[in-house]
Every structure is written in C-alpha cells, then in structure tokens.
C-alpha cells in the first residue's frame, strides 16, 4: 500500500499540496510508508483496533436496546502539524480562553460587558446555560474556565478557524493520550522519522491545576466526579483519575456537612478540596438545580459558593460556549484584552435577528444550521446534504423558535488520508480539538484530538455519529528540514 494512487480531490489536504506532492513535514512518513511491505500498513491498522478492544478503550452506545460498548475507530496515520503553525494556534487559543474566562467572571459579576452593550444582555440572560443563582459568586483564584476544548477546522485555504468553544468539561483528552500510546506500540517505525512534541504531561498538569485552586493547603485532596460507569465518557473519567492518582468518586460517595465536602471511605469521612466534575451543572446539586437529580451531591453548591471546595469547571461556564454567544467572541476578546482575535470565527448568522433569519431560510441548502445549546453534533442540519423534505421539516422548527438557532456557511474542512481497506488510502475530513488548562498559567496540550469523519464525504466528526480519531503530532522546531510548499 503506497500513497501513489492517493487523490486530494481538490480539498485542502493535511498531507499533500497536490496529488503526488507531499508537504515538507510529512515527506519522511510518506517515504517510510511507501517503503513498507504491501499489506503491512493494513495489518498494523487491524492490530491497533484489536489492541483497543483488548485493553477496553471503549465508549458506551445507547441507541440500541442493550447498552453496548464499542471502540472509537482509530486511524493509524497521524495528523501532523508543523511547529510554526502550532505556535500561532497556541497563542490564539490562550487569547481566546483568557477572554472567555473574563467574560464568565463579568457575567456573574458586574456585567460590564452587558451594560456596555458589547454583547446583547437578553442574549446572555436568556441562554439555557446562564445560571442566575451564581450572581456575585467568586470561585477560587477567580478562574471559571479551567478546562476547555476548542474545535478548530481548516477552510479550503488551510486557515484554522474556530468552529465551536467547549467550556463545560469537554471530553476526548484520554484519546489523545491513548492514541499516542497505541501508535507507539503498534507503529514505532514512524516515530523514528520525526521529533514529536510529547503529550504525556497532561495528567500531571491537570492535577497541578486542580491543586492550585486550593491556595491554603499543602497536599489538598483532589477527586474526579463521574456520573458513573454507564456514562458514555466513563472510560475517560477513570483514565484521568488513574493517571492523576486521585479518587474517582460518584455523587453517592460524597456528602456535605457544615458546607464542607467529604467522601465516604473505609476509615470514615475524608475532606475533599478540589473536584474535577464530569457532571453537568443541571445534575450537580439537587438543592440548587434539578431537584430530581440522583447523580449529584446535595449542598455542594453552597460549599463551593463559600469557597470550601473548588469545582472544575466552575458551574455556569456554559454561558461562554453557547453557539449564539460564540458569534460575539471576537468582540469579547477586543473588549477585555484590547487585542484583535488571532484565530477567526466561522461566519455566523444569528437567527434571532429578523434579517439574518430571512437570509438563512432562503439559503438553507447552502448552510449548516445548529441549535445554540446542544453539543455532540445533535440536532443540526447540513443544508447541502439534506433532502428537500428534511430542509422543509427543519425550516418549520427554525421558524417556530428562531432564537434557538444559528447558521454558518459549510466549511469545506481539510482532509487527511486514512487507511480504508487492504487496497489503499483515501482522504477524509478532519477537525482538531486542542485542550487548554487554565491554572497558574494557561497551558495548551501539544496537538489535541484530531477527529475524522470516516464515512466517505461526511463532514460529521462526532464519535456518537461515526467519527473516529487520529494521533496528532506537533513536529518539534528546528528538526524538520525544508520548507512548506
């Protein structure tokens, strides 16, 4: 199997400038693969899948009668980003996260940005993710958006654009680490060809951040709070707890007494200081949010408000990743930091504005329409791929509740080669979700999760909808020769 027959089909390709002409920083790997025995690449691909199954790197599917586990398909050809491009992305991400954190703090503080009418007040206050109960609360060290995952795509010119901000416990980082570990085991030969920035430090950085939030204690007790083993991301919760060497707790393991949080241990109650919670705001505390939540911890919000426990991310941060508010992020950056945004947004139409709604309705077949408060690729319409009937049905939903939707032009998304079968490689669309930690300083994990739409022609990369992933390499500076074409 070689790249000789590989076609870019006119898309921006992560490996090839044009057919037969690899980018400078992938030349080595292309050469290595072209020189391998026929069939070997495919064998390695199969070996990687078997390894994931055997080691139980799975997620849970709910759409069948019986809950079923499956692996997230993993493609062994790494996605490669040269360092100079990465540097620029990293700066852009830091800038964005800093501004969004200031925004959340402001929204639950003095609301200056709303008073100055930079972001429409009603848009923020009517957001599903806005929690009015939190007004006036100051979290430890003033940090709200501790962990973010910001989805980037590349347009047909190869420019990185922000597609979506994820500020409420984004998942996927465990795959970044597992993908790297698997690739090292299955396909060590490709690593010899390049100098790749490590990703292994993430768990210790995460733990450092969680401990930083407890200023007055030397060895604070940290825990990861999970909804339980039937949650689709349970693998990741357990993975992170294990990698950080901290306890993985469920709501029922925690109890609040005198506004302090404790966990039930075989030797009695033990105080918990900092919690990475992988539980939505709604379920966190039945005393403040959904009273029917059995997953949460009664009283934990009061303990947090009093500064007796750190919650990561802070409750209420969802207000900063609402898809309608997304369109204001460039102004938010300008407002708080006085800088122009380094990374651009995808052009966005707010359907709550009459003129834009009319435009969207007329141009449905050219647009992607998304509900503002959903994630995971649910409830979206991809205009060009939808049938006329689907568009008509969607139009009705849109007109019934225009505030709930935004629309964007279809971004073509860059492609990268994947191993499809014994016969060869084909291009598939990819995105990139880097992970950013906000503790003592802002830390961006090298690379991030490359998600790939494995269905031919598909633009949907979500794992719940047939997406897979790739290991993502940032090539270290000064160690690749030649120039990018």
């Amino acid at each position, binding site marked *: 199997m070689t790249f000789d027959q590989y076609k870019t089909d006119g898309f921006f390709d992560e490996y090839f400038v044009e057919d037969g002409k690899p980018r400078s920083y992938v030349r080595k790997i292309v050469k290595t693969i072209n020189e391998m025995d026929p069939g070997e690449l495919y064998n390695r691909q199969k070996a990687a899948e078997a390894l994931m*199954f*055997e*080691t*139980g790197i799975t997620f849970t599917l709910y759409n069948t009668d019986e809950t079923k586990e499956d692996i997230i398909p993993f493609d062994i050809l790494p996605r490669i980003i040269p360092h100079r491009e990465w540097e620029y992305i990293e700066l852009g991400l830091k800038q964005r996260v800093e501004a969004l954190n200031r925004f959340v703090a402001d929204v639950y503080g003095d609301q200056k940005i709303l008073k100055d009418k930079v972001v429409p007040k009603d848009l923020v206050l009517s957001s599903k993710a806005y929690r009015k109960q939190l007004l006036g609360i100051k979290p430890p060290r003033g940090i709200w958006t501790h962990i973010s995952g910001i989805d980037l795509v590349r347009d047909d010119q190869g420019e990185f654009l922000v597609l979506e901000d994820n500020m409420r416990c984004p998942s996927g980082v465990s795959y970044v680490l597992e993908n790297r570990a698997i690739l090292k085991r299955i396909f060590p030969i490709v690593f010899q060809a390049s100098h790749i920035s490590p990703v292994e430090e993430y768990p210790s950085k995460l733990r450092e951040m969680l401990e930083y939030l407890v200023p007055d204690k030397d060895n604070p007790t940290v825990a*990861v709070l999970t909804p*339980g*083993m039937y949650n689709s991301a*349970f*693998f990741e919760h*357990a*993975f992170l*707890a*294990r990698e950080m060497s*901290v*306890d*993985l*707790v*469920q709501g*029922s*393991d925690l109890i609040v007494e005198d506004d302090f949080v404790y*966990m*039930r*241990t*075989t030797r009695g109650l033990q105080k918990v200081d900092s919690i990475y919670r992988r539980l939505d705001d709604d379920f966190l505390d039945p005393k403040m949010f959904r009273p029917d939540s059995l997953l949460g911890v009664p009283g934990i919000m009061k303990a947090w408000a009093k500064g007796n426990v750190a919650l990561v991310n802070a409750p209420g941060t969802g207000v900063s990743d609402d898809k309608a508010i997304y369109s204001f992020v460039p102004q938010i950056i300008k407002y708080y930091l006085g800088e122009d945004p380094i990374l651009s947004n995808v052009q966005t139409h707010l359907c709550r504005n009459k003129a834009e709604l009319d435009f969207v309705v007329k141009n449905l077949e050219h647009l992607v329409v998304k509900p503002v408060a959903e994630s995971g690729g649910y409830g979206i319409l991809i205009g060009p791929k939808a049938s006329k009937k689907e568009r008509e049905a969607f139009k009705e939903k849109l007109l019934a509740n225009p505030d709930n939707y935004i629309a964007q032009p279809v971004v073509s998304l860059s492609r990268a080669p994947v191993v499809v079968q014994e016969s060869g490689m084909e291009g598939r669309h990819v995105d990139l979700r880097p992970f950013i930690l906000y503790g003592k300083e802002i830390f961006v994990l090298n690379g991030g999760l490359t998600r790939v739409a494995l269905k031919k022609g598909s633009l949907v990369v979500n794992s719940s909808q047939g997406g897979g992933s790739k290991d993502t390499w940032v090539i270290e500076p000064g160690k690749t020769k030649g120039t990018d074409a």
Partner: protein
Amino acid sequence: MLSRVAESVYWLGRYMERADNTGRLLDVHLMQMPEFTQEELELWGPLISVTGDEAVFKLHYDQINLDNVLDFLTFNRDYSNSIINCSIRARENARSIRETISKEIWETVNHFYHQITHPKAAALMRREPDEFFGEIRKTAHLFSGVIEGTQSRSQSWHFLNLGRMLERADKTSRILDVKSFALMPKTKGQKFSPYDGLIWGALLNSASALEMYKKRFRQVTPEQVVDFLVLDGHFPRSILFCLSHAENSLHQISGTPHGNFSNQPEKQIGLLRSEIDFTEASDILELSLHKYLDQFQLRLNKVGNAVYESFFA
C-alpha cells in the same frame, strides 16, 4: 479508600474466584465420565444442590442431566452465579474501579469476559470441554498472577484478597459437600472400596488438591481428605488456609495487631479460624461432614455480612 471502591474490589475478587471454582468443578466431573455409568453420574444432582440454587434450576429445566447442568452453571444468563454472569459482574466491578486496579488486572478480567461471551464459546464447550475449561483455568491463574505481581499491597489489594479468600473457603466447603451425601460410609463399619477412592480422588482434583494431598498422605481416605481440605495450614485452597489469609487481610486493612480485634469481621473470623485451629478431622466426621459444612457456611456468611456492615454500608 472509598467504601464503594472497596466493595467493588471485594466483589471483583469474589466473582473471579466463583467462576474459577465452578469451572473447575464441572471440568472434573466431565473428566470422570468415561469411568462411570449413567447411574453413578447422578452425581450431577449434588452439583446443583451444592450451589444452594436448586429452585432456580428447576425454573429453567425439566431434568437434571449433563447438558442442562452445563448450560445452567456456565452460560445461563438468568442464573446470577453462572460463569458467564460471574464474568459480567466481575468486569462491571472492575470497570467501575479501573482507576484503582492495575492495567493488567483490568485486561485479564476484560479478556475473561470476552472469552466467555464469545459467540462460539458454547459450541467450544460442547465440542472440546477440556480445552474450554482449561482456558478458563488459565485465565484464573493469570488473574492470580497479575494480582500478585502488579498491585501494591495497599487496602485495595487486601479487599480484593479478602473477597477471594472468603469465596474460596466457601467453595472448598461446597466441593467437599458435593460428595458428602454420596460418599460417606452409609453405615458404621462399612468398607471403603478402592472405587470410592477414585471418587475421592476426583473430589481432590476439583480443588486442584490431588497432587499436594499425595505429598502429605499415601492413601485416599475420607478422614484424611477432610483433614487436608479443611484443616491443612499450607495448602492454598484449604478452608483453614483461606480463613487465615482473609483474617490477615482484615488486620492489614484496620491496622490492628493479630490476637486483637477492632471490628466485627475481625472478631467473627478470628473466632471461626481459631476454632478450626483446634479441630480434628475425626471431630468433623463424628458430627457428620454435611452438618459441619452447613454450619461452617452459615458462619462464613456472617463474616461476609459483618464485612459489609463495617466497610461498605
């Protein structure tokens, strides 16, 4: 450690041990088949009665025969203690505490689950029972190995060990009980035939004890078998051995020195173990083996309940 995690790790140990013992028992029975007539193989009956789940069996099957017993104890998903359900529960417990157990332990449990839930597993068991049960036994040995070799001797290890040891003590008592009906001399003074020796040999085999038994005793006699499986201090599947090790883990968990107790499970198991320390095989046979084992199982259950109350509740 977290109470919930302690409980899961304890049950992980119990379910893996339970599956192993059930497989062992069936395997030995199948191997005996060529030597016995159908009539003698009514021994399948005790195999069910010893589980204490006869009523469940009767809900699913009309008669006790080879196929039904194998199906019930191995693949029946409605029977909570079948090997397949043990593998599912062991894996669920392991999955919920993956951050606590070593990667190797998880992978072994995961492997066991895939082994037994494989679509062709039932066909393999019927075609090549020897290979099928042999593979299960290997996985069980692997499990013991990774526990010994990859998990620190912290509380989590001791809860795991506690679960395994209590389960194994219970299972050894049940293996012994299977034969206690059929094999004890019916009347006083009845001769012990060489043929009975074969069956007692099989029984020792069920507990993987035959070789070690022979190192200690020349002949196979009921009294010596009881001595070995209940009272031997060195054989790792004897009741006394299991209890001592369970007791030790309890003391490691609480930090209380031996000879003292700081909680109910320590007290209960200490009493039970020291009583066995001062028991002889002839005492057991005098009372009747079945009665003795029955009482033992009840007291062992009390230890289990005390563990639950002290640490998990």
